[in-house]
């Protein structure tokens, strides 16, 4: 299949797999030696820097698979292990799976590839070249980051190559030992098998394999030969541990002689500390020390609960935050930015003559208009932020769940004054993230606390209240829409989106650097949709920086998916067309059109109105290169709206783990519905008013619809699936509620406008 041919070329061009001897065995990984050849992709290495950053280690006692991309619950460790195992011919359950130590060779070459100014449905040579080229800055910037649904696209070839090189090198070692050509050997279950059936464990060949040149001329297996990837019964490697309470998350790590701590910082993020009652905290049982931290104060104690209780007793007094005082002022600033040329940021879609179309419609009295709002949203994963830090005179050790281990390393070095080469980050599995763990304020605070008790490991845990009020939320946004319809068709679509810039807020916080130029996230998910509307314009307006903001599952598409698809649905209804048929007619991208057609077939679509207070909504969003369509059925009961059923179709190009893809897709839908229905952060006196789950309700089991998922493989590139399930959920629900009730909801959360069961 085409995807693999392309992949082979990329493989040779952008990385090399090598081997190195380790104690009693061999490691296979990305070859770091600077070569005397003209390869600009190796220019970031220092002269003399050599060795490998491993993906596979085989010693006398076992096999270790290194999975550098973080696991937030999306199954990344399991997927990475299975990519290696597919070529290595082992059962990952028999291996040790670890993220290893962060390193520049684990750079993420795919996370920036959708940052190019081409929509994902543009498969032209120019667009593809630009995407491939984005691996270069990612490598040079040493971006070892997990996010953007990029793990699989980035590592699909690299990890299989590591497995294949390891397998062939082990076979070569056996070939030499037994005097049999390598081509006559095969492998299975961690063993090389000789023609006579004799088996030799990989572990017994490891030392010999380290002594020979690695076999790097490998061909990746055709998917038809896969025994693990693509199979329905491929279990996640972490499942048993997670169902028996034995998975060790960051918050569960225990280090000898550890003390416990928590902090409180100004919830007006960036504001000053005016005062606190240190004596009250120090007088409490179990409290050892009160330590000032940036914009806040921490308590070190002998139990996390003592620290939580002492924090309350501190009774901190806070200065104002450096942004508008409350939600009313924030909405005012957002409303003022939209369609205001002083706030113009970018316009990546401008087709036909939208101004002319609107003017023509005006004279006929037919311009359609609407405005939309989405609120600030907390990520609120189940595991609150935490980190263990131990600082000695010349070293810093950090145990934490993080999507950005190298940024954590550098910031800890900066705060502690220890050289970054002696800052060790032990990445831990995460109890959820949704983008939350792309931030590291909690680690910085833990480093400050650990500096106060050098030599002693400090486990710092945020209370849920601290976590909710220091979340760096998804930006709030507003949109104004205009459009035209003619003769039963949508003819003009104009969307103006206003929000604060996310990327500079986040990247500035991590690095202290400014990000020049427009912020694409303002319109990601609306400018880049695969529809051929004759007059079609999407414009981003940049509101002032207000509450510091961050990436939230599906990033720009989380709000823009709602704006774009809801407005499209409104225009289709105004045109009198069928919501699904008109989307299919307008769709200009073959892979996306097939997704729309498939969701209609899956749901047995026959129109939005079902009768008896029931309605169906369809929605579509192309995000992270994955066209995703959803149909949601609702019933308007006497007790409120009930979400009955949901149907999801997405195209990921190549399916590697169907059971987990299904989970990610319905998980994205449910996360999307949770926030569409229930959740928002509102601000008063610079602080979020929602401090815990009681005020920030996610969907519960009784509200969860029956979900049917179908995954297609028509796309020309392999794609990740952690995020694309989310963006269509809110518009599909809103469109279904309109079909059932005639009420159009243009603001999240929907509960402010209609009751739910």
């Amino acid at each position, binding site marked *: 299949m085409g995807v693999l041919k392309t992949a082979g070329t990329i493989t040779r061009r952008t990385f090399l797999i090598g081997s190195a001897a380790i104690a009693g065995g061999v490691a296979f990984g990305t070859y770091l030696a600077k070569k005397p050849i003209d390869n600009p992709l190796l220019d970031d290495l220092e002269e003399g820097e050599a060795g490998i950053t491993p993906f596979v280690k085989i010693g006398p006692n076992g096999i270790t698979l290194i999975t550098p991309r973080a696991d937030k619950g999306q199954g990344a460790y399991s997927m990475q292990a299975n990519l290696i195992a597919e070529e290595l011919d082992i059962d990952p359950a028999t291996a040790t799976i670890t993220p290893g130590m962060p390193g520049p060779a684990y750079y993420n070459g795919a996370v920036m590839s959708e940052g190019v100014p081409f929509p994902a449905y543009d498969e032209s040579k120019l667009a593809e070249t630009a995407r491939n080229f984005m691996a270069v800055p990612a490598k040079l910037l040493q971006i070892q980051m997990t996010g953007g649904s990029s793990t699989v696209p980035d590592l699909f070839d690299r990890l299989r190559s590591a497995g294949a090189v390891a397998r062939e090198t082990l076979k070569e070692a056996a070939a030499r030992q037994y005097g049999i050509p390598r081509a006559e050997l095969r492998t299975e279950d961690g063993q090389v098998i000789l023609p006579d059936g004799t088996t030799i464990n990989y572990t017994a060949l490891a030392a010999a394999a380290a002594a020979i040149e690695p076999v790097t001329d490998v061909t990746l297996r055709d998917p038809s030969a896969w025994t693990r990837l693509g199979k329905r019964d491929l279990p996640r490697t972490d*499942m048993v541990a997670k169902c028996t309470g034995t998975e060790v998350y960051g*918050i569960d790590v225990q280090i000898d002689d550890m003390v416990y701590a928590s902090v409180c910082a100004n919830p007006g993020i960036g504001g000053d500390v005016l005062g606190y009652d240190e004596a009250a905290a120090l007088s409490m049982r179990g409290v050892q020390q009160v330590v000032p931290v940036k914009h806040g104060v921490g308590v070190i104690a002998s139990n996390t609960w003592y620290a939580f209780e002492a924090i309350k007793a501190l009774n901190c007094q806070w200065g104002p935050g450096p942004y508008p005082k409350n939600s009313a002022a924030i909405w005012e600033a957002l409303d003022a930015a939209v369609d205001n040329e002083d706030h113009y940021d970018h316009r990546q879609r401008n087709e036909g003559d939208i101004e002319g179309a609107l003017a023509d419609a005006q004279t006929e009295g037919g311009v359609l208009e609407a405005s939309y709002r989405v609120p600030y949203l907390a990520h609120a994963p*189940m595991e609150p932020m935490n980190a263990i830090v131990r600082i000695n005179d010349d070293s810093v050790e950090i145990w934490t769940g993080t999507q950005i281990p190298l940024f954590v390393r550098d910031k800890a070095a900066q705060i502690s004054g220890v050289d970054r080469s002696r800052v060790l980050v032990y990445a831990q599995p995460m*109890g959820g993230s949704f983008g939350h763990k792309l931030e590291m304020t909690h680690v910085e605070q833990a480093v400050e606390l650990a500096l106060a008790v050098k030599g002693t490991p400090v486990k710092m845990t945020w209370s849920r209240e601290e976590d909710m009020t220091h979340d760096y939320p998804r930006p709030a946004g507003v949109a104004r829409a205009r459009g035209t319809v003619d003769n039963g068709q949508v003819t003009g679509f104009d969307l103006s989106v206003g929000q604060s810039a996310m990327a500079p807020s986040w990247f500035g916080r991590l690095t202290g650097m400014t990000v020049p130029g427009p912020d694409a996230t303002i319109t990601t998910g609306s400018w880049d949709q695969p529809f051929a509307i004759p007059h079609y314009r999407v414009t981003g307006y940049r509101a002032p920086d207000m509450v510091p903001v961050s990436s939230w599952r599906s990033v720009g598409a989380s709000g823009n998916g709602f704006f774009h698809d809801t407005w499209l649905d409104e225009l289709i209804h105004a045109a009198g067309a069928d919501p699904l048929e008109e989307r299919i007619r307008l769709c200009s991208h073959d892979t996306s059109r097939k997704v729309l057609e498939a969701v209609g077939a899956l749901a047995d679509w026959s129109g939005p109105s079902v009768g008896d207070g029931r309605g169906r909504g369809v929605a579509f969003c192309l995000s992270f290169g994955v066209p995703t369509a959803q149909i949601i059925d609702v019933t308007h009961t006497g007790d409120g709206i009930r979400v009955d059923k949901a149907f999801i179709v997405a195209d990921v190009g190549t399916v590697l783990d169907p059971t*987990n893809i299904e989970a990610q897709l*319905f998980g994205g839908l449910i996360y999307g519905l949770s926030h569409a229905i229930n959740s928002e952060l509102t601000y008063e006196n610079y602080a979020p008013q929602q401090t*815990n789950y*009681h005020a920030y309700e996610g969907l519960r089991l009784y509200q969860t619809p029956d979900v049917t998922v179908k995954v297609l493989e028509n796309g020309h590139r392999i794609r990740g699936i952690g995020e694309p399930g989310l963006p269509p959920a809110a518009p599909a629900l809103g469109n279904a509620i309109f079909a059932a009730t005639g009420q159009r909801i243009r603001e999240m959360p929907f509960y402010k406008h209609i009751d739910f069961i």
Partner: protein
Amino acid sequence: MKLTVDGTSYEADVPADMPLLWVLRDELGITGPKYGCGIAQCGACTVHVNGLAVRSCQLPVGSLNGDVTTIQGLGSPEAMHAVQEAWVEHQVAQCGYCQSGQIMQAASLLTLNSDPDDEQINTVMSGNLCRCGTYPRIRAAVKTAALKLNRA
């Protein structure tokens, strides 16, 4: 203060008002039960006392009136409880952080009602929050676990 957890007796030097959760996690090193909210809104801390589900973040250890079973005592990776087996069969967990509590809640439900219907499952399990949205598989796994237990 004496307490029995997963069949083992412990002595903990803690005040009576310390929530059981924090005795388990930070004093005894039993980390299967999770801290999620501290106000009984999420259920991640759920353990059994005398075989029935309680929110350990809300139970002062001084009020404890029976033996405690945590997710780690319910079964082990080598010998899973039927509910844990069903969870693995359905590949329920994503991040997994809430699943200790979900499984303990489900096991408690099935102790009281060996054949719950959808409505009963909804009612009992809706106190346990899952931010990953694993609910469709939780629903299916509870039913599978009921079948397993009824066959046993």
